């Protein structure tokens, strides 16, 4: 058996020595996007406030014969900078939660960039009732949003108490390494402070996100 392209002009080769089929992976499924944003100078935070949120604006029901698309997060990179010397509190951290029920607001609205300039617009856009937002100096408004009980990832900041202190984490969800973090239509993820941050802490957070939007297959649970 030979594996050929559609018009039969090329046949897949086998690597001599290894007796292994050759393949070239170009990309994962779906439409790729990224979004990047940075807070302003953020002050003390109350417990459970949100400083970043990104929502899948797909409708719950797709067009006839189609299922609405899901948003799959592959990677989030966070860069935290302390802007003041502060007194650390045990347990100070930022954590990622998933939720739904309403649209966040406030802060700065971010503009997603498609990995291919000619691809379709992201479902994270205002005309679909969805945006990505990052705080400027205070918490985002998350009225009506119900978050899942458990957080998905966390970034400890209790040790980062000096002006100029810096820490960088990658929250890796790639399908290649594990499984992407799926947002069903109207779901969102938010970066929240599970415990309040100290009153004398001023800080800045930069967030980079890679995600894909994939058309769900009818009769599948993906």
């Amino acid at each position, binding site marked *: 058996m030979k594996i050929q392209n559609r018009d039969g002009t090329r046949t897949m080769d086998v690597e001599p020595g290894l007796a292994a*089929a050759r393949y070239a992976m170009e990309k994962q499924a779906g439409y790729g996007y990224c979004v*990047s944003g940075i807070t302003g100078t953020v002050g003390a935070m109350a417990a459970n406030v949100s400083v970043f949120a990104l929502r899948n604006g797909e409708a719950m029901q797709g067009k006839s014969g189609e299922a609405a698309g899901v948003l799959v997060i592959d990677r989030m990179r966070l860069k935290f900078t302390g802007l003041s010397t502060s007194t650390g509190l045990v347990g100070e951290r930022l954590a990622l939660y998933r939720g739904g029920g309403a649209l966040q607001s406030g802060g700065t609205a971010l503009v997603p960039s498609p990995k291919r300039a000619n691809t379709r617009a992201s479902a994270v856009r205002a005309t679909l009732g969805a945006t990505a937002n990052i705080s400027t100096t205070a918490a985002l408004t998350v009225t009506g949003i119900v978050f899942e009980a458990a957080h998905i990832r966390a970034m400890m900041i209790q040790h980062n108490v000096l002006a100029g202190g810096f820490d960088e984490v990658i929250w890796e969800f790639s399908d290649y390494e594990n499984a992407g973090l799926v947002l069903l239509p109207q779901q969102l993820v938010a970066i929240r402070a599970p415990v309040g941050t100290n009153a004398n802490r001023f800080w800045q957070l930069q967030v980079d996100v890679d995600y894909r939007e994939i058309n769900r297959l009818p009769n599948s649970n993906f």
Partner: protein
Amino acid sequence: MAKIDNPTNTVQAEVEPGLLALRAVILARGYGYSASMITGTMAAALAANASVFSMRLDPAASGGHAKAYVERIRLKFTTLVAFTTPVTAGRRLELYRGSGITPSGGAAGVVMPKKGATDTSEISIANGGDIRIATTGALTMTGGSFEAGPIRGMSLSHVGAAGGFYDCLWEFHATKNQPIQMDAGQVLAVRSPVAFDAGGTWQLQVDVDWHEATEATYAG
């Protein structure tokens, strides 16, 4: 039972004993290239929205080099003379894509093919593309426009003291997500969304990996 042959029927693909899985080797798609460049001593007070590194795909790129897929950019930032305010909120560099832009100035870059010595890249200046990095001041970016949103960010708020160093990786690799696609004539540039203060001088090293290929017509 079907067997997978190579085009001349001399080699057959093997099934791995124990796992009973088809053996496969991953080959990088298209033609692979890299470039490594470093600025000179960048003068203080870089203006907002200045470009310090850029690469442009030949506006006439076609065939097997019709698209450039950027898989990884690694930046190394060093502060040489302290900034007036060493810890400054918002100081950063960001990656933007644009079109219709003609870059000039700075130092021209050299593209290294991953395989062989022949430079076939459509990013190369010799082949109609462009790649360059600033020497002491911003690059000149004439015409066109950048997209509204940044693709990636490199926070520099914390590295304002002399000798401050930060190594930042922007990873787009296909197996992790998707590479950044550049169409013919499009530009990727590292820019300063906000002005740098009047005191600090600095240096930036940029390493880029990309491949050039046809557009994946049947890709989802």
